[in-house]
């Protein structure tokens, strides 16, 4: 067995190909098929574009889409907060390593766990409101999870709180890899702290920020199920105020027995994620190049 035979490589990749075909290939073909059928159980008659027509004319679907888009507003806050904290950490003040350990903690806790805790914290007569009332900010004591005007913002707060931890670590890691001599030079030229941050550090952060933004957008468009499932009582409540596309698919499949409808929405989400792959790969490639450079 000195020489690798011509077929050997295929043996090595065969399990990989089989696994990917099963978990990705098969479903991706079938969502297209199902999306054109009125599926009952495992199959059903072809009905052309009827599923798409039904979905696109349904207010609930558009409401779900709107909620995903609204949640994107979290991204600027995540970037700003992460950047601020990372920059301050980069000063390497006394105890900065300890701060770093603690500040990453939100990302360690699983989403369902943290959502349960937040749900209790933000109850109408819960601790957060109690403190707010106590310090005289009664007008801020909202019904955080019980009001359909506020619940989505509470979800967003939770997303910012948790996902920023990743931003902090990513940004800090990038800063620590920067060439310090530039900072020293700027200092010698009399640039103050803000000037140095703004003109020396931030420009060099562009690539990693871009990467973080693209990943966060993908997360918010397609991976917030656990947040809304826990906060919205499993149904995107109160009312339909925290309904998002993922939950719409879940409900159509599991709760209302409409696999065809669920498939049509899956197809649309899949197409959107394809659009996002391009910027993601570009950002990742640049981030990697920068790291190895």
């Amino acid at each position, binding site marked *: 067995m000195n020489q690798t035979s011509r077929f050997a490589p295929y043996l090595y990749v065969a399990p990989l190909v089989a696994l990917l075909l099963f978990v990705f290939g098969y479903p991706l073909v079938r969502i297209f098929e199902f999306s054109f059928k009125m599926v009952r*159980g495992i199959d059903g008659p072809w009905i052309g574009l009827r599923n798409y027509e039904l979905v696109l004319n349904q207010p609930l679907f558009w409401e779900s889409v709107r909620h995903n888009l609204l949640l994107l507003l979290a991204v600027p806050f995540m970037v700003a907060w992460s950047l601020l904290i990372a920059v301050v950490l980069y000063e390497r003040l006394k105890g900065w390593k300890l701060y770093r350990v603690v500040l990453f903690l939100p990302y360690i806790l699983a989403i369902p766990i943290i959502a349960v805790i937040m749900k209790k914290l933000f109850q*109408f007569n819960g601790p957060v409101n109690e403190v707010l009332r106590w310090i005289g900010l009664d007008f801020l004591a909202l019904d955080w999870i019980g009001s359909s005007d506020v619940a989505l913002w509470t979800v967003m707060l939770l997303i910012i709180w948790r996902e920023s931890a990743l931003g902090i670590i990513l940004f800090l890691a990038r800063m620590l890899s920067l060439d310090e001599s530039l900072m020293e030079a700027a200092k010698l030229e009399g640039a103050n702290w803000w000037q140095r941050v703004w003109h020396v550090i931030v420009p060099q952060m562009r690539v990693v920020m871009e990467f973080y933004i693209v990943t966060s957008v993908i997360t918010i468009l397609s991976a917030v199920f656990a947040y809304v499932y826990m906060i919205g009582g499993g149904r995107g409540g*109160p*009312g339909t105020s925290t309904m998002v596309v993922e939950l719409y698919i879940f409900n159509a499949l599991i709760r209302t027995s409409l*696999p065809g409808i669920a498939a049509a929405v899956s197809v649309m989400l899949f197409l959107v994620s394809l659009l996002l792959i391009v910027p993601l790969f570009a950002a990742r490639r640049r981030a990697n190049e920068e790291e190895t450079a």
Partner: protein
Amino acid sequence: MTGKWSFSRRDVLRTSAAAGAGVALGGMLPAWRARAAAELNMWWWGEQELPGLQAFVDDSVKKYTAATVKPMLQDTAVVISQFQTAAASGEAPDIQFLWNGIYHMESVWLGYLQPLNGLVSDAVIQASNPTLLSNFGGNTYRVGWYPLPMIWVYNKDAFDKAGLDGDKAPQTWDEFLAACEKLKSAGIAPVGGGIQDGYWGEWYFGHALAQNVDSAGETIGLFTGERDFREPKYHEHWVKLEELRKAGFFNSEMLSTELYPGIDLIVAGKVGMGLSVGSRVPADSKASNGRVGTMVMPVYGKGKLAGQPIFDSQGLGIAAKAKDPKGAAAFLEYLQSPDRLKAVHESTGWIPANKNFDVSVLTDATVKDMWQRWGLSPNIPYLSNLVPGQFYEQALLPTAQQVVEGKITGEQAGELAYNVAKEWRDFNPDIVENYKKWAVDLGG
């Protein structure tokens, strides 16, 4: 002890309809072992919401001599799908546990269950009250097993504090509003519970829609399109919710509290009145030293079903392809014999679904009184068990939440319900037909 039936059941149905029908068509199932004669298989559920039922089943099987009965306790998640799967491949158990209404009607429509009339004696079926919702095409498909009276409860201590008569619950809507006013002045939240998880809206719908309809079949018309939620009497229940909210009668934490913790608030006297379910009463009565009273929803409506106690039940049925339907029927009759009825109570502390049950064994006055009024008096079925899944998810639960919150008016809720019902018809043209047929049995 009450458990989670209202929600798990609905979730389960929706899951299993896809899974069950799916496997059904696939027809690929492990074969269950062949049965000898005089051997009955029974798949059941209920220990989950009524602890002690297992002991009852074991005991009943042991004492039954006409056949060997093999019971199997099913998991909540697979009660429906496992049965439908097995039925599709001709391997269903002889006896199957069945939730009420649409939860077992689907199996009927798929041809997996057989009519019990003519198989089980009429007297037994009647006494067990499987409710009207077990009827389709003139046939009955379940024998009742244990009941679930759908009730309102009130706290007698809270009533006393507010200067109300703790032994007299309000019966009319005006009396109810007056009581709310007094409770409010006494610093007690008059009415409510918890609606964060949405199920409160399901219970409320079951109680309140009944006030303006003459039959269960009339309700079906709201989904099939023969009637219209936008007509005032079909959304008046949501308008009433709106009024209660405007009057400030709901407890302040209602929106961020879930269903069962909400009932605890009533038991604790923090909320005056609200919705509950009968199987909670023995425990709640004990916890409050008998200071929780049961009541029918106060009446505002003019329908024939208004002001009547609502009675729902869990039941058992016989599979279409049961090897020995007669033997299965005999066992169901045996479970309804006086000795077995007593055994249900002894094992679970709850009541069996049978009008002939000897109530002298009940010690708690509140429980006894409830059974008298809900179980033994004329009663009506629980209308929320008629609701299609899509309507349940997109209208039944969200509308009540949004009205209680003040986000939409009762009228807008009616509009939304109309739209969702219409969407359901568009999405499920095939199921609409079965609903129309069903309406005939339900007096539409």
